[in-house]
């Protein structure tokens, strides 16, 4: 007992000078385990705003780690307009049961409905101990002094409530209110527009094991259009960043392109949603962290966001657990940056950068898209692409084949660009 108090005194002795160390240097050496003050009498309280894949994963990690977690969701039964494709590694890493998946060829992409996935993840977070609050968060009050709590103002059942917490995770999507509250800055968004079309059975059979992607200036000047099968209907849509006002024109064009395969179908729903194009200028401020779409973790080129949302949620939750030592200590901005942001950037920035490069190179013009289609004919390319996409890991390649691949990319691009230039001079 005495030694414990001695240790505590010792600890705080060490803690004090380190706490006041000037912050102008970014490298800080801590002699003690943590300089954060321990919380007495309760666990760290965290609020996760938004219970999609990101929020639910964060809440699950937090609750499992011993932090008192409140999960806010304004429309638990809503269906987010979304492609609904998740890579294989997500099924493993997040233990997604097979029964949730609408289309599951056992090797490639799993396609599911967002409402199904979201409610599964949310329920699991709840079972781990997160408290789900069905209400709309209206504002977040930033504390004026350090260690004072954040106050989350929300409306539930037509009544206004407030909740004081120590840490806030913003997982509320592309139009994040949390991001606004912490003045995180804004980002450029693409708009994704899709129509859900119910087809006749024979036409649905065509899409039994097939998802399609269409490229071309007619369907999108800087992205792709798609026909993705769902459980009993297909989602036909397109997206764009630079020509949002023409989205309806592009949608008509994709309907025309896929006409033979979807004609006679009935449109059962029309939906649209913004997709962030890049991370927000600030992703962590104070004891507030952004994850998922709110942070802007959507890859270019494929527009994939579900896996990264869930993963960032989990990593953020685990970072908080680690920094707070299981909810025992208060955390600060540096903890969030060090344990969450730094880890995240180190892990995925190359992926994001690479996809950005691909988007620039291959989506820029029709000539480049032709080259892309040509290049994707090769089996080696397909294999490497799929494996990398599905497992989010560098696939085992063969150096010679890789060299061939690079060589052929350059060749294809050059040839198709030549043809492109020739096309410009033609008038048919």
């Amino acid at each position, binding site marked *: 007992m005495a030694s414990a108090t001695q240790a505590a005194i010792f600890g705080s002795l060490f803690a004090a000078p380190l706490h006041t160390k*000037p912050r*102008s240097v*970014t490298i800080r050496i801590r002699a003690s385990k943590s300089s954060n003050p321990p919380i007495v009498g309760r666990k760290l309280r965290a609020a996760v705003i938004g219970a999609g894949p990101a929020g639910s994963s964060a809440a699950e990690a937090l609750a499992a780690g011993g932090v008192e977690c409140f999960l806010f969701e304004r429309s638990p039964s809503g269906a987010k307009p979304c492609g609904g494709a998740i890579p294989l590694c997500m099924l493993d890493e997040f233990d997604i049961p097979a029964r949730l998946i609408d289309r599951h060829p056992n090797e490639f*992409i799993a396609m599911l409905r967002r409402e199904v996935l979201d409610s599964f993840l949310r329920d699991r977070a709840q079972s781990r101990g997160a408290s789900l609050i069905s209400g709309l968060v209206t504002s977040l009050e930033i504390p004026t002094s*350090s260690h004072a709590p954040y106050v989350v103002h929300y409306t539930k059942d037509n009544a206004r409530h407030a909740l004081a917490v120590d840490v806030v995770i913003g997982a509320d999507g592309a139009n994040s209110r949390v991001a606004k509250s912490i003045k995180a800055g804004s*980002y450029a968004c693409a708009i994704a527009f899709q129509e859900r079309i119910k087809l006749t059975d024979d036409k649905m059979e065509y899409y039994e*094991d097939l*998802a399609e*992607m*269409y*490229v*071309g*200036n007619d*369907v999108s000047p800087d992205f*792709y259009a798609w026909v993705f099968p769902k459980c009993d209907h297909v989602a036909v849509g397109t997206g764009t960043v630079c020509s949002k006002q023409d989205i309806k024109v592009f949608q008509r064009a994709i309907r025309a*392109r896929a*006409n*033979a*395969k979807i*004609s*006679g179908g009935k449109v059962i729903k029309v939906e649209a949603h913004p997709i962030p194009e890049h*991370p*927000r*200028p600030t992703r*962590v401020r*104070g004891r507030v962290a952004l994850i998922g779409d709110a942070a802007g973790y959507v*890859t270019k080129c494929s527009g994939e966001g579900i896996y990264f949302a869930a993963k960032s949620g989990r990593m953020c939750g685990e970072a908080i657990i680690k920094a707070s030592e299981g909810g025992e200590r208060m955390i600060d901005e540096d903890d969030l940056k060090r344990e969450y*942001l730094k880890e995240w950037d180190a892990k995925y920035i*190359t*992926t*994001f*950068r*690479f996809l950005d490069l691909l988007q620039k190179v*291959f989506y820029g013009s*029709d000539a480049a898209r*032709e080259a892309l*289609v*040509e*290049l*994707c004919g*090769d*089996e080696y390319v*397909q294999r490497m*692409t*799929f494996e*990398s*996409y599905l497992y*989010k890991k*560098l696939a085992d*390649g063969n150096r010679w084949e*890789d060299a*061939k*691949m690079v060589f052929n990319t350059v060749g294809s691009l050059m*040839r198709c660009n*030549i*043809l*492109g230039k020739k*096309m410009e001079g*033609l008038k*048919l």
Partner: protein
Amino acid sequence: MSISMALLSPSTHLPSLSPSSYPKPLLTLKPYLSLRPKSPLFTTKASAENGAGAPGSAATAVEAEPKVREPAEPVAVKSGSSGEANGSAGPAAEVEVVSLFEDARWVNGTWDLKQFEKSGKTDWDAVIDAEARRRKWLQDNPESSSNDNPILFDTSIVPWWAWVKRYHLPEAELLNGRAAMVGFFSAYLVDSLTGVGLVDQMGNFFCKTLLFVAVAGVLLIRKNEDVENLRKLLDETTFYDKQWQATWQDETPGNPK
């Protein structure tokens, strides 16, 4: 090593070469068909009208695909149609007949090279021209596509030397000419200003730098617009990275918790 790492991170658009099959159109069919069972569709064609007359074997090979295509796999860049091969297809009742790409030499989703022969050898220039016209047509008249009539032609069918002869050589001649003119006059100028002769110039570091700049300039700046384009390109390549690093720029001394 790092290059291949960068190339192989998750993405859907990795480049590759279709099986090299230069002058033999028949061979191209095989490699494509054998790819079918495993590969997601990357080229699909067809016209609505041709649905009925779809080539049987191609169709079965196509349907055999058991895999869901990865969402980012392009399906049809330009939907083409196999016009002639199936004769005039029976028009589908409900679909408006959109005029399709038709050409006597476009057979079964590829160019019939036998029809391009000139004095016993394939006239590759004509093939290139024909392909350009086809793509231009499709750009202006995008077609409804299907997997029943795949496009089998791609630019690698035209042999590399045909491309070089037609497009690289004239440009190379131009650039070499420019480099020679710039080089000659720079050498003369330096000589008249400093008295250093041509051979001695080559041994001087500053002159070698000038030479490097001249060569790079001739290569990179071919048109007036290129100067602006290069600058924009540089900005673009670093822009995304800047956006990611933005959150780290916030570190200011004494930032409050």
